[in-house]
């Protein structure tokens, strides 16, 4: 049976921060098409501050994710602060007492994030936002686990689901956020939050997969 050692928090978080900082310009460009062009700036601000806060520390996954959550909530405001903040806080709480995280626990972690996020936002699939990435990705992961697939296969399903979810936003008409101002004209463009969410879930899957250990079942 494969699992992730929960002591890897700092490494995984560093990679999540990395993917956001690398894509700062790209995320703002995506937001620029139908929003105000600052999604990369907003996200990078929060993730960079978190990177500074954890520098040199060796944290558990719980601690690392809690740290990310509180930094986002405390520094970026707007909608992204509480949305990503509560998402990562929900994830952190789900792995609080864990030393190892197997496929089931990883699924619980994702669902914990999703539940926390839904606790503060009514956004639905189809509204053209990060929920359009998150919901199908997590559903695909859970379906793979239920079907008895391996941890790496489920992580692959998470990535595929996230990418499909992200791409689904292209043809949607925005019902929330700034892009909703454009009505029909918001069609034909990806949603910035859906893109950042896909980047984060994909990186999380890759970072996890590369650190999987195998235990005798």
């Amino acid at each position, binding site marked *: 049976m494969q699992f992730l050692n929960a002591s890897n928090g700092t490494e995984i978080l560093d990679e999540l921060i990395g993917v956001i900082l690398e894509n700062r310009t790209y995320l703002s460009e995506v937001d620029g098409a139908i929003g*105000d*062009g*600052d999604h990369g*700036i907003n996200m990078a601000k929060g993730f960079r501050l978190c990177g500074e806060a954890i520098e040199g520390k060796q944290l558990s996954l719980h601690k690392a994710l809690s740290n990310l959550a509180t930094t986002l*909530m*405390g*520094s*970026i*405001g*707007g*909608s992204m*602060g*509480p*949305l990503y*903040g*509560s998402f990562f806080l929900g994830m952190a709480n789900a792995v609080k007492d864990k030393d190892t995280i197997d496929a089931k626990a990883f699924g619980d972690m994702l669902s914990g994030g999703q539940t926390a996020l839904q606790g*503060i*936002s009514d956004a639905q699939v189809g509204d053209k936002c990060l929920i359009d990435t998150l919901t199908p990705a997590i559903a695909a992961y859970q379906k793979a686990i239920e079907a008895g697939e391996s941890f790496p296969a489920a992580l692959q399903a998470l990535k595929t689901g996230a990418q499909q979810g992200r791409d689904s936003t292209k043809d949607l008409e925005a019902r*929330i*956020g*700034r892009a*909703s*101002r*454009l*009505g029909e004209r918001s069609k034909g463009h990806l949603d910035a939050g859906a893109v950042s969410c896909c980047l984060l879930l994909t990186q999380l899957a890759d970072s996890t997969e590369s650190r999987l250990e195998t235990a005798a079942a």
Partner: protein
Amino acid sequence: MQRIINDPDNVVDDAVKGYRRASPDLYAATEHPRVLKFSGETVDKVGVVTGGGSGHEPAFLGYIGEGLCDAVAIGEVFSSPTADAFLEAFRAANRGQGVACLYGNYAGDNMNVKLARQMAEMEGIDVQTVVARDDVASAPADQRDKRRGVAGEIIMWKVGGAAAARGESLDEVIRLAQKAVDACSSIGVGLSSCTIPANGKPNFSIDPGMMELGIGHHGEPGIEVAPLTDADAMASAMCGPILADRTFENGSEVAVLLSGLGATPVMELNLLYSHVADRLDAEGIKVHRTYIGNYFTSLDMMGASLTVVKLDDELKALLDAPCRSLAMTQ
């Protein structure tokens, strides 16, 4: 971008520093750089807090003062303050009698206030909220909960602030602030876009010769983009949805708040008001009090927002109570 700023990314912090230096008789710092509190005498009363994105000056900071708000959480331009900022504002305003958090219905503000309230609860601070939903253009009357909060927020602060100042309990302050904003119907009309300094280009566009009826305070889409009319027809177009939003019996008394959106000369607001007054006269509505000027703006947008507040004796007394702040002194 023809604006008076330094680094566009620091415009809010720089402005907050300026407000504090300019008016030490009104503003005091708190533990959080994005929270200011009233620097005047500390009276034992219910705390009144608001907060929201910057760019709506004199809202929100301008309503810190006597008989108004005690502390304000300050967001980036057109972006909700953080939950941390709201929490610190609750702490700053709390004198053991609880805090009334009176804010507007925007996704970010709702989420951040919700988180901050949960944190405040853990600290034993009782926070109750009223969420302004006065923009009639943002959703039909049967979906009031979806409506945005606009300049009616000012009436909510004024009434809630006056209630707190005269020593009402938290429940009573909340009831009165809720009653005040429930009595407000607002609508905006936009004649130009506005430019967020950090973006450097107009946030959206309104073509010359056109106007957008029902536009939101951040440029949210209105009911209709129509050819620009004269002020008389504009007043009718604005009064229509407001008069349709509730029943105004012959002889009803109202307050009228007509705010510029930033770049519209004040003489034009007064000019527009005279047509609004005609319209209200025709319905037999009596104007008890007016507020005409730049009370709640959207950076450098051209246009105006109209708020009509249906009054009874209870609201009248609170609206007429004295107050002192940058934005409103009476």
